[in-house]
């Protein structure tokens, strides 16, 4: 079978039991590829479990930037039986499966972590092909389709390593099978082993010895596979990218970096998946280097940069404490945030209302995950838009930002504080599990693009004759803000309606003025925020079909559009970034002329679709929704858009791909 080789375009999956090192193997794989100039996008899936349930990482590599995962894979790297059972059917016919031949006899029923529904499904599949229920049977069905089988004798290799390193028990180094799987992958892909060695040394930075043992050990698997001389159609080739400084990171890291750069100095949190990754990353790096304030490093340093800064990261007793502690900190002038997911956000309602009525600059980074209730804690969803928009009883202002990719997430992380301080209000930064746990390569962030705007802030004492009024009525609705502890600007806060000093009032006239004052700030934000920060438009402005979406679906939509473009299907794509105040004009303009409006969301209720109709009167003609906990792939989206373009799509398409 001769095939045209596919260079630098690969979907790879590594899987295994939770706690067995799947993550680090994917990181080594991704980094090694990235060192070679390849663009990387990784999507991580795992159960709400500490050890034993199945987790996997899809890593896509490409010669040009990619932003999403796909439904099929070309190379499946496994070292346990479950991974074979779960993923083998999705390997492309021209793909390959790396596996442990020792597991060939493992039966479906030997794997207790496979759900009854999936078990039945696999049985049906195997029965239809006249096969039994073992790994061997499933691999045979793959081989029949043309899939290359790559047995790697993990145990033998482990023994060799153990012998060479004088290790008495194989179990002590059993995690090395991960690296065998990665090395085998690179072997089959014809990729330079040196890149992997470098990645190993980087990932095991803290333990040089372990790194070296892995470098030597994995090489065995690499060599073994290379020696097979497989005619595998997928190849990886290094690309020269010296012109660009590039990083590989997760979304959670990108947001954390944005927040710290943006001046956040207090972050409170209560552990919750997938939000705590961010806090833990920040805590691990809580000492903040300070630069000379001048751009020219040769210039003398000013006092400002003399001292290192720091972020106080507080693990609290619950999310009520997290949000109220952050508000307390914000009252003193520190840029403060908290970071959570749905269940924790549920406990922040009163805090949000209090911050709203007291005009406190509070930032909440909300990592959406599959609800309702505990739902699927480690799975993806964008199901909290409406809840965040209407969070808390009564009417209080808030700004909602939604980031579509790592870079936006980084910049929004910083920008959220500018909005919060300029408009003295709560900013909810909507991100999600997919963005948090995915990783990818990107040009390194340019800190110089970030500016800090603290709004109207009193920093040099109070010389006014009248006493300072924290909630003074002004044209814009914004009152000059002093902070707790500032000399002479004493003020009061209360969750009750209050007068300009901050004391309780129930006066009906003052009440109206205060309600209107608070809301005016949002009107100001709507006027001031540039359209480019409210929405993005991609693709064809004149296209009859316009896709509209928000948040992390962006990558898959763009990749799908690229794919369809090649087929001659042209689409426009309106990405809504500022969810509140809602960009009525920009959205109306972008959608008014479209014949088909395709609302794409990772939730059941089509939240944004409803909001668009509520605010503009425009009703999307098509819904493309997904709510099974797995992010949308570009494959699925391309199919859905294609159907719409061809005119044979129902009004509502529910995407269901998921492993």
């Amino acid at each position, binding site marked *: 079978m001769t095939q045209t080789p596919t260079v630098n375009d690969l979907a790879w999956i590594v899987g295994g039991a939770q706690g067995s090192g799947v993550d680090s193997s994917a990181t080594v794989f991704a*980094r090694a590829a*990235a*060192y070679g100039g390849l663009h990387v996008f990784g999507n991580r899936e795992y159960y709400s479990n500490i050890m034993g349930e199945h987790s996997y990482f899809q890593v896509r590599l490409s010669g040009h930037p990619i932003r999403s995962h796909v439904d099929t894979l070309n190379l499946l790297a496994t070292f346990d039986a479950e991974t074979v059972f779960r993923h083998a059917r999705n390997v492309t016919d021209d793909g390959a499966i790396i596996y442990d031949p020792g597991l060939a006899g493992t039966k479906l029923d030997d794997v207790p972590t496979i759900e009854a529904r999936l078990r039945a499904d696999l049985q049906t599949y195997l029965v239809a092909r006249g096969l039994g229920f073992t790994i061997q049977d499933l691999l045979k069905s793959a081989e029949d389709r043309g899939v290359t089988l790559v047995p790697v004798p993990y145990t033998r290799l482990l023994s060799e390593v153990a012998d060479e390193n004088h290790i008495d028990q194989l179990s002590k180094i059993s995690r090395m099978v991960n690296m065998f799987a990665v090395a085998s992958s690179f072997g089959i892909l014809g990729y330079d082993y040196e890149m992997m060695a470098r990645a190993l040394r980087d990932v095991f930075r803290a333990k040089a010895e372990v790194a070296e043992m892995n470098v030597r050990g994995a090489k065995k698997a690499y060599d073994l596979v290379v020696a097979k001389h497989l005619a595998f159609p997928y190849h990886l080739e290094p690309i020269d990218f*010296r012109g660009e*400084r*590039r990083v*590989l990171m997760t979304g959670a*890291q990108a947001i954390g970096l944005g927040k710290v*750069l*943006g*001046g956040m100095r*207090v972050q*409170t949190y209560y552990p919750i998946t997938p939000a705590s990754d961010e806090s833990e990353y920040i805590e691990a790096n*809580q000492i903040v*280097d*300070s*630069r000379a*304030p*001048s*751009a020219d490093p040769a210039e003398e340093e000013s006092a*400002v940069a003399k*001292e290192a*800064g*720091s972020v*106080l990261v*507080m693990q*609290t*007793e619950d999310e*009520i*404490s*997290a949000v*109220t*502690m*952050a508000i*307390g*900190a914000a*009252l*003193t*002038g*520190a840029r*403060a945030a908290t970071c959570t997911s749905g269940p924790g956000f549920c406990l922040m309602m009163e805090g949000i209302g*209090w911050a709203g009525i007291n005009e406190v600059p509070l930032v909440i980074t909300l990592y959406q995950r599959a609800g309702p209730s505990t739902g699927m804690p480690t799975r993806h969803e964008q199901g909290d838009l409406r809840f965040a928009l209407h969070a808390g009883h009564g009417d209080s202002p808030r700004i909602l930002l939604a980031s579509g990719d790592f870079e936006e997430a980084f910049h929004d992380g910083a920008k959220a504080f500018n909005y919060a301080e300029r408009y003295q209000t709560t900013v909810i930064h909507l991100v999600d599990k997919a963005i948090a746990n995915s990783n990818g390569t990107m040009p390194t962030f340019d*800190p*110089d693009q*970030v*500016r*800090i705007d603290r709004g109207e802030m009193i920093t040099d004492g109070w010389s006014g004759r009248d006493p300072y009024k924290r909630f003074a009525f002004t044209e814009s609705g914004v009152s000059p803000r002093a*902070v*707790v*502890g500032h000399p*002479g*600007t*004493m*003020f*009061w*806060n*209360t*969750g009750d309606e209050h007068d300009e000093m901050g*004391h*309780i009032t129930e006066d009906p006239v003052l009440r109206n003025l205060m309600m209107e004052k608070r809301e005016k700030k949002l009107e100001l934000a709507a006027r001031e925020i540039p359209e480019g920060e409210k929405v993005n438009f991609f693709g064809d402005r004149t296209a009859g079909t316009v896709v509209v979406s928000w948040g992390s679906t962006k990558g898959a939509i763009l990749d799908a559009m690229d794919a369809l473009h090649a087929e001659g299907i042209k689409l426009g794509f309106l990405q809504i970034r500022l969810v509140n105040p809602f960009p009525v004009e920009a959205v109306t303009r972008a959608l008014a002329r479209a014949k088909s409006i395709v609302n794409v969301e990772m939730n059941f209720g089509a939240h944004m679709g409803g909001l668009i109709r509520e605010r503009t009167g425009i009703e999307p003609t098509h819904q493309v929704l997904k709510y099974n906990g797995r992010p949308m792939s570009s494959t699925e989206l391309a199919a859905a858009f294609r159907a719409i373009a061809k005119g044979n799509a129902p009004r509502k398409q529910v995407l269901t791909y998921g492993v």
Partner: protein
Amino acid sequence: MASKQVLKVADFQTEVHNDWCPGCGDFGILRSIQMALAEMQLDPSNVAIVSGIGCSAKTVHYVKTYGVHTLHGRPLPFATGVKLANPGLEVVACGGDGDGLGIGAAHFVNSGRRNVDMLYIIFDNGVYGLTKGQASPTLRLGVKTKSLPAPNMNEGVNPLWLALAAGATWVGRGYSYDIKHLVSLIRQGIEHKGYAFLDVLQPCPTYNNINTKEWFGGEDRKEENEGRPLPRVYKLDAEYDPVVHSWEEIDAKIAQAMTKGREWGDKIPIGVFYKNELVPTYEKRISSRVPNYVSNPPAKQAIADTEGRPVADLTKLLQSLAVN
């Protein structure tokens, strides 16, 4: 307040109309707070009082310092946020017994674990004042105040015990009609290095007709005392040493405080029950991770230069994520 002028009690009073009921025990606590602040000559701009929700929580509006009247049950985390972001401030948290020991009990317990250097005062009146006299967590089982339709269904908690179990490093109890003593307690609580908890017996004449001023004052016990009132409230005397002088003493001192703290009925002790400055404050603990935390705390850090460019330098972090 750069000037060195001497501050008087009046300097800590606002013009806000006080709408507590006549005879409310809260007046005594308010007064004591103002007197303690004046006595300590604290710069009003450098003090923050943080309260929850309830009659008691209105206190902040009557004191001329920064005043943060927060949410029901939440004064402690708010106050912790204020204090830790700017450890140079004097922070006093306060609120009702319902606020602190009912809805807020999780913060009560976990604040003990932190030992942040601040004072927390509970206005302990046995009822939910502002919602019209329902039983609060300190009201004992079977007690029927005039505001209750039937005897209380829940057992009361002992705030001193709970504070000790939670880890508070200074535990005291005052009485709102013994202002001089209360001023001294408040002052000691503020001066204590660590988390100080002060329970104040506060008669609510409107709803609690059991634990009244007269009852605390023993007006009903004249027969036992030759016609003169025989107060139930008495002060811990010099023989009672609440201070933990060494780590070895902790167990004994806690046990002593627990035993003393259980007295109730005809003898109700007030004073300092426990004081332990051996436990490092949270501020100290942070400093072990962030050496310059106290001198350059979150609220004081410059985050931007005059052009608005961030001061934070991410070079090293980005370097660790770089792939070239």
